[in-house]
């Protein structure tokens, strides 16, 4: 039933986009590109949530991981003068933060939500403390135009004429889906998240699997943070991530803990925002800016209220594993 609603919605949206494209080509492409750029960090951050929760760990520290990575990525790039090096530093920072979180939430068996909150407070404090003004990036992020594919009308300029981060985000969703559902690693991860007792009995090291997965997931948070600081904003500000880590959790739930579902949810979310800001810019709807700012959050709450209860989270999520 749910799938049918989703398909109907997808077809309706696609039809709407095509109509808009016929009416005003440039504007449609710009709105869609904006939407995709808005969705990129959400997709990546949702991947963090999916890996962690599929392994049975609630990670509300994604926000903090992203913030630290954005910070490290930006200053890494600004100081070394190399965007790729900066991105790698950002990804590394994300993984370090993931390992710190895993130490608390997995090894020390702390309450996972408290551990995540600590990560968030720590990241806010550290990034504000070491924040310094006056640094700039060595260059702007290059765009990579994929030949042939980019020449397709509508789809081409939107999807195949982007920075590397965008491709990475789209690709990572597909990759993670394949990894989770088609590989031994995926099966083990899911079993640890659903029934750690049985997984343990069959010889899987629950604690180690969780630790490794949470740490690896940090790489996606690092990528998301690096994207925000290096490509999207080209600068670092205090509180740069602006709640995206939490929105990503809602997207993860909306996508039913499935990477492809989360990808679709994030794109839908981006589209809603792209549309709202375009309508605002065109003065079609005369509502105060503050209400436009509220929109993504209200949308999240409404979507969760609709969806929740119909999809099931991994069974063991949130419980530290105690050997019996």
């Amino acid at each position: 039933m749910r799938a049918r609603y989703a398909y109907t919605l997808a077809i309706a949206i696609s039809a709407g986009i095509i109509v808009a494209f016929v009416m005003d080509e440039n504007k449609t492409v710009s709105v869609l590109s904006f939407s995709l750029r808005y969705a990129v960090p959400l997709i990546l951050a949702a991947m963090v949530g999916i890996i962690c929760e599929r392994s049975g760990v609630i990670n509300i520290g994604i926000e903090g991981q992203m913030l630290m990575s954005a910070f490290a990525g930006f200053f890494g790039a600004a100081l070394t003068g190399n965007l790729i090096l900066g991105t790698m530093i950002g990804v590394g920072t994300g993984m370090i933060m993931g390992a710190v979180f895993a130490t608390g939430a997995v090894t020390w068996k702390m309450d996972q939500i408290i551990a995540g909150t600590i990560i968030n407070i720590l990241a806010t404090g550290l990034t504000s403390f070491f924040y310094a003004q006056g640094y700039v990036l060595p260059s702007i992020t290059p765009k990579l135009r994929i030949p042939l594919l980019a020449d397709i009308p509508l789809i081409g300029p939107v999807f195949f004429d982007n920075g590397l981060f965008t491709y990475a985000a789209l690709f990572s969703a597909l990759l993670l889906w394949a990894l989770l559902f088609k590989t031994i690693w995926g099966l083990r991860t899911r079993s640890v998240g659903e029934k750690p007792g049985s997984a343990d009995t069959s010889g899987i090291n629950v604690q180690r699997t969780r630790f490794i997965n949470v740490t690896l997931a940090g790489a996606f948070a690092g990528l998301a943070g690096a994207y925000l600081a290096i490509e999207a904003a080209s600068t670092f500000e205090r509180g740069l991530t602006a709640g995206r880590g939490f929105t990503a959790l809602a997207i993860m739930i909306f996508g039913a803990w499935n990477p492809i579902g989360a990808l679709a949810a994030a794109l839908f979310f981006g589209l809603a925002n792209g549309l709202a800001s375009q309508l605002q810019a065109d003065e079609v709807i005369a509502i105060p800016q503050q209400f436009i700012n509220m929109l993504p959050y209200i949308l999240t709450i409404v979507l969760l209220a609709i969806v929740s209860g119909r999809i099931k989270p991994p069974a063991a999520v949130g419980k530290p594993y105690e050997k019996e």
Partner: protein
Amino acid sequence: MEKSTPLVLTGLAVTVGLRTGLFNIGAQGQLLVGAIGAAWAGYNFQMPTLIHIPFAIVFGMLCGAAWASIAGALRAYRSVSEVITTIMLNAVAIALVDYLASQPLKEADQPLTRTPEIAETAALPDIGIVPSGFVIALFVSLFFGWFLARTTQGFRFNTVGMNPSAANYAGIGVKKTIFLAMAVSGALAGMGGAVETLGITGRFEPSFNAGLGFDGITIALLARANPIATIPAALLVGTLRSGAASLQFRTGIEPEVVDVILALTLLFVAAPIVGRLLFRNRATKQTTVSSGWGNS
């Protein structure tokens, strides 16, 4: 002490939630809504002091309670995780109060986005050197210490927090209790905002009290969800915060260092393994809040 007053109340707000198994990250939003509500009630009416102060505080509490009830209702009746909804409501509250202070409730003929100053009859006086808000906060935390330990409703809160299925089996309306606890939690955070507005700032400004609600989480966890213990915890955080300002003035160290200190403190308080290392022989209690996503 001035700094600690709203912190006691937001700490209590988070505590009541924790005891009922709810993680109210939205104290910040509820505090903002309560603050602007109290500011409106404070400047919009003319009454004798004895009625005006309680009226403005209660109005602020109602605003906070209403704001938290959105998350409470969604959690109780639609099993939406309150962790996410309260975070989202925080962001919505920030935009909402910014709008209210810049448009409908704006002080006329002023370039700044802020509400008019509250009437003198609504201002909280100081008792000697102690702000009366602090006395109220003390009283409220003692009340909640008694409430959670000694009353039927408090027992319901605790039971739902510890074991919802047992509570259900014992005939406690789990959904109603969750909804109520969230409203009480929001009312306390709103009260924190109201006391801050009426006692210290005297009007609502968007730059108001950044982070008081988030410190409430730290305080509640430091106090291990014990209402009485929120007082020393709030005093600690309040002192650190006000000390940070003069620290920056004298040594140039950024005040955010306090966040780092608090995060580390929390890390060591909340990690059961540290407790075990320190008190080898004593059984250590652990603070737990995660009850899973939406499994009510």
